[in-house]
């Protein structure tokens, strides 16, 4: 039984409780009074870019729409501008809840695989933790080729002038493609992260099981 089916079984018909217990800041969801100020204050145009504004997502959680919420790309589109938190009349930490739900969906393997924010987050994390330094060249290349080789070439061509300008200004080193610069204690960083992963995994697995 996968982690997803296990929790789905545990919280059958009580998705709100699942969110409260498993999602960081999830216990705030029940406080929403559906006034709509968060959506109204959101600088992103969710109508085309994302399906569900925050207060709709909260209502869906209460309505038990587990599949729709966890597979939604909506919470991945949050730009963390904090407008909603500032204006929420019930002081819900909406930005944090959005990130919490996104992280939970990711953990259960339900988040949309090729959603741009999610893809970039993964890419950035791998890139930065490998050497302890962000390799900007590899990062942008990875993003260019996200939707296949042909699209990647097209993206690269479109950004050609910018790239050349950066090279000229000394802001971009082509040699970074071969390994790139590292932090002083690469092994130390990785050992630290491995420990952090282990702690987090133990805690979250226990929470899922508990």
């Amino acid at each position, binding site marked *: 039984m996968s982690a997803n089916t296990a929790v789905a079984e545990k919280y059958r018909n009580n998705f709100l409780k699942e969110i409260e217990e498993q999602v960081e800041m999830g216990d705030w969801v029940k406080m929403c009074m559906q006034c709509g*100020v968060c959506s*109204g204050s959101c600088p992103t145009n969710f109508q085309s870019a994302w399906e569900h504004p925050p207060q709709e997502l909260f209502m869906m959680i209460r309505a038990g729409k587990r599949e729709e919420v966890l597979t939604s790309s909506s919470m991945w589109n949050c730009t963390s501008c904090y407008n909603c938190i500032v204006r929420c009349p019930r002081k819900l930490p909406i930005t944090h809840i959005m990130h919490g739900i996104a992280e939970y969906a990711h953990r259960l393997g339900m988040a949309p695989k090729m959603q741009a924010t999610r893809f970039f987050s993964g890419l950035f994390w791998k890139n930065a933790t490998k050497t302890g330094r962000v390799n900007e060249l590899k990062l942008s290349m990875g993003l260019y080729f996200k939707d296949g080789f042909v699209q990647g070439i097209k993206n690269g061509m479109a950004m050609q002038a910018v790239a050349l300008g950066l090279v000229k200004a000394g802001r971009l080193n082509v040699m970074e493609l071969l390994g790139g610069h590292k932090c002083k204690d690469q092994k130390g960083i990785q050992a630290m992260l491995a420990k952090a992963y282990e702690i987090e995994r133990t805690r979250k697995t226990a929470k899922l099981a508990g």
Partner: protein
Amino acid sequence: MTEHVATNETILVVGGGISGMTAALEAAETGKNVVLVEKNPALGGRTSQLYRYFPKLCHPTCGLEINLRRLKGNPRIRVLTLAEVTGIEGSTGNYTASIKIKPRYVNENCTACGDCGRAVDTMVDDPFNYNLGQHKAAYLPNAMAYPQRFVLDPAIIGTPDADRAKAACKYGAIDLDMKEETIQVKAGAVVWATGWQPYDAKKIQPYGYGRFKNVITSVEFERLADIHGPTGGKILRPSDGKEAKNIAFIQCAGSRDENHLRHCSRICCMASLKQTHYVREKYPEDGKSTIYYIDIRAIDRFEDFYQKVQADASVSFIKSKVAKITEDEHGNAVCHGVDTEGYKRYMTPHDLVVLAVGMEPSVKGINIPGHIVADSSGFIEADPANGAVFGAGCASNALDVNRAVQSATAAALRAIQVVNKVAKAEA
């Protein structure tokens, strides 16, 4: 009026609005002596500043007139206007209040003929109209003011205007030598009925009150609709005096908001529903009201009032708390937000936006009598620790006129019980 001496069998009522008047009258009509203290130059409070009451849509002059008539006929009530309680000492059955009385510069000889007003040139802001307009510095506070006596604004004292006013008075009613005084009044019990104030709408930054002229508050809208108001009863928008026919009402402006007022102010939904009647009354052909709301709280028997407004084709309801207001090139106020029924964004211009501002207790933040127990919003609680200081009306909760009167009667009854005990102990 008979000036009875206040003793510890006297009831002190602080605040001369509808609650304070009610408490004073109820106590006096059972035979108790009452001192009624009012900060403004006339009684009536915020009730007198309304255009109409809900749900019957009658004018407040009616209800107030009945109370004023009861008051005039009752020698047991001593009314102090322009007076403020600055401190209370003592305990149940034995209080002494310090009351600061500001000079009116007009004595009892005044017949309210208006000659002084005509003689004076200086204009000052008119707080009765929420400073939307100005009036002469020698003025009658409002049309049905009690006491029906003029007031001289302190700004003109010592100027030739004051001398002109004095010269114009045929009855010797103007006394420019009046000074501020502080008196001590004894009382057995105190009814604290200082009412409420509209929440400062400037603090709701995204709504632009104070930045956009055509964003006003619900209390100001009452004055616009009133024939005695600054526009003579025409609903004109402040920026250019254009007839405001497309009006938005924004509910919970300050209320039910942890960033502003925690509580539901209870009256605002009904007040906005009532105000849609004003729009239809003034512009029966093409008046249009839009109510933006979280949920309409038309409590108990007011539900039918709500249903009638819902059935009105000129009123539309949008379930959404407006996120922000901007101003377009025509001076219209544009409401931005998301309609939570369907989750559609809107960006709707209106001639005028009325913020249904919340009710903040006037007692909040002031430190008299010091030991008052209040709830997290600042309303006075019914707590034994308050001794014989009883909250009444909107000093004790967010209430409409009807419920404020009930609350005031209850407070009067509690005060009567205290002074009865005092009387028994002394007999």
